[in-house]
C-alpha cells in the first residue's frame, strides 16, 4: 500500500500594535527676543513766552514736559543746546552759585560761542554776552516709575536720572526771572531760543 505523506503548514505572524510607536508626539519651543527700549515723546514741541523788554523777565515760565515709556530700567540724560554763531549747537546749561541756568540765543543774530561761554563762566558784564539771555531752571521733576531722581552733573552740564519699566513724566520748569547779568540793551529784539533734549544716550 502506497502511503503518501501530506504536509501542510500555515504560519501566521501578527505583531501587536500597542506600545509600538517610537514617537507619536514632539514639542518645539519658539522664542522671540524683545530688547530694552525707551520711547520719549514731548508734550509740546514749541513752548513760547514773551520777554519784558524793560526787565528781561519772561511773561510766563516755561514748562517742558517729556512723556517716557520704558520696558526696562533705563538711564536718561537731560541737556540743553544753544545755537552759537559759526559753531552751531553748544551746551546751554550752566551752574552758578548752586543754581542751574539755561541760555537762550537770538535766532536771527546768533550769539558768539565766546558770548555764551562768558555766561557759563559767570562773567557778569552783559556787554560780553550779546544776544544771549539766561534764565534759572526752577526744577526738573519726575512723576511715575523712576528709580533715581534728576541730579545735575556739573562736569557734563546735564541732568541725569533713571526710570524703570512703565510710564514716567519729566517736567522741566524754567523760571521767568532773568539772570540780570545776562540781559541788557545789547540783546537785540527778536526771538530767543534754546533746545531741551532728553535722551538715553550720552552722545
Amino acid at each position, binding site marked *: 500500500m502506497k502511503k503518501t505523506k501530506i504536509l501542510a503548514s500555515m504560519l501566521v505572524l501578527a505583531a501587536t500594535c500597542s506600545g509600538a510607536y517610537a514617537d507619536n*508626539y*514632539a514639542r518645539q519651543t519658539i522664542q522671540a527676543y524683545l530688547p530694552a527700549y525707551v520711547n520719549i515723546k514731548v508734550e509740546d514741541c514749541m513752548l513760547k513766552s514773551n520777554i519784558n523788554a524793560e526787565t528781561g523777565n519772561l511773561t510766563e515760565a516755561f514748562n517742558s514736559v517729556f512723556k517716557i515709556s520704558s*520696558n526696562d530700567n533705563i538711564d536718561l540724560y537731560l541737556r540743553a543746546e544753544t545755537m552759537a554763531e559759526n559753531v552751531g549747537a553748544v551746551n546751554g546749561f550752566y551752574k552758578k552759585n548752586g543754581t542751574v541756568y539755561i541760555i537762550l540765543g537770538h535766532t536771527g543774530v546768533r550769539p558768539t560761542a565766546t558770548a555764551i561761554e562768558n555766561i557759563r563762566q559767570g562773567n557778569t558784564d552783559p556787554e560780553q554776552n550779546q544776544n544771549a539771555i539766561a534764565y534759572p531752571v526752577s526744577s526738573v521733576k519726575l512723576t511715575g516709575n523712576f528709580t533715581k531722581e534728576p541730579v545735575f552733573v556739573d562736569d557734563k552740564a546735564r541732568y541725569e536720572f533713571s526710570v524703570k519699566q512703565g510710564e514716567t513724566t519729566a517736567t522741566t520748569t524754567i523760571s521767568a526771572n532773568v539772570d540780570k547779568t545776562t540781559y541788557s540793551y545789547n540783546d537785540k529784539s527778536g526771538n530767543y531760543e534754546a533746545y531741551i533734549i532728553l535722551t538715553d544716550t550720552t552722545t
Partner: protein
Amino acid sequence: MKSNFIIFLFLSIISAPACFGAAVRESVLTVIVPCAASVNTITSSGNNSSINPETGVHNGLEAIFNVKTNGDDSTYDFVLSGSVNTTSGETNGYFLKNGDLYLILANKEYLPDMAALSDITSGSAQNNKNMIAYPVLKNPEFDTSYQKYNGILSCIFKSRGKQNFNISQRIGNTPLAGTYSISDDSSGMYEAAITLNIYRKP
C-alpha cells in the same frame, strides 16, 4: 543474490523522488504590518526671532515638524497644540478671535498671570502685561481646522495621505492690537511651545 537485488530495488523505490505522484501543498506566510507614525521637531533659524520694541512686530517665527507614517487620515488625527507658561503654570496658548487662530507668547523671566491671559482672550485686549498675541498663519499645504481636541483648542490638519512630510506652523509678524505695549511688556525672551500629537483613531 536475488534477495539482495529485491532489497536494493525496494530501497530505491522508497527513496525515489515525487515522480510517483506525491501531494503538493503551499506554505503560506502571512505578515500583518501595523500602522505606525513618528514625529520629530526640525530645528531651524525660524524657531527664534526678535521683536521690534517700537511696534511689537517680530521678524519671522515658526515651529517645524517632520512626520513619517504608513497610515493616513482614516487612521490618525494630526493635532497641533500651543502652550505658554504663566504664574499659575502651563496653559493653552491658542485662542480664537473672529474665526482666526492666535498664539500667545509669554515673557520667560517675568511670567504673566492668568488675568493677562483672560484679558487677551476676552476679545478686547488692553491690559495683559508680559503677554503678546500673534496670528497663526494658515498652511496652504494642509487642510486645517481649529477645534477642541481632548477639550483643548487645537489646530487639526489632514495629511492627505502623505507618508513623509514636514509641516510648519508659522506665526504672523504683527501683534494683535491691544496685546503689545512698550511700558507693559518687559524686555526679555518671549516664548511658547508648539506640540504635534498623532492620535490613533478609535
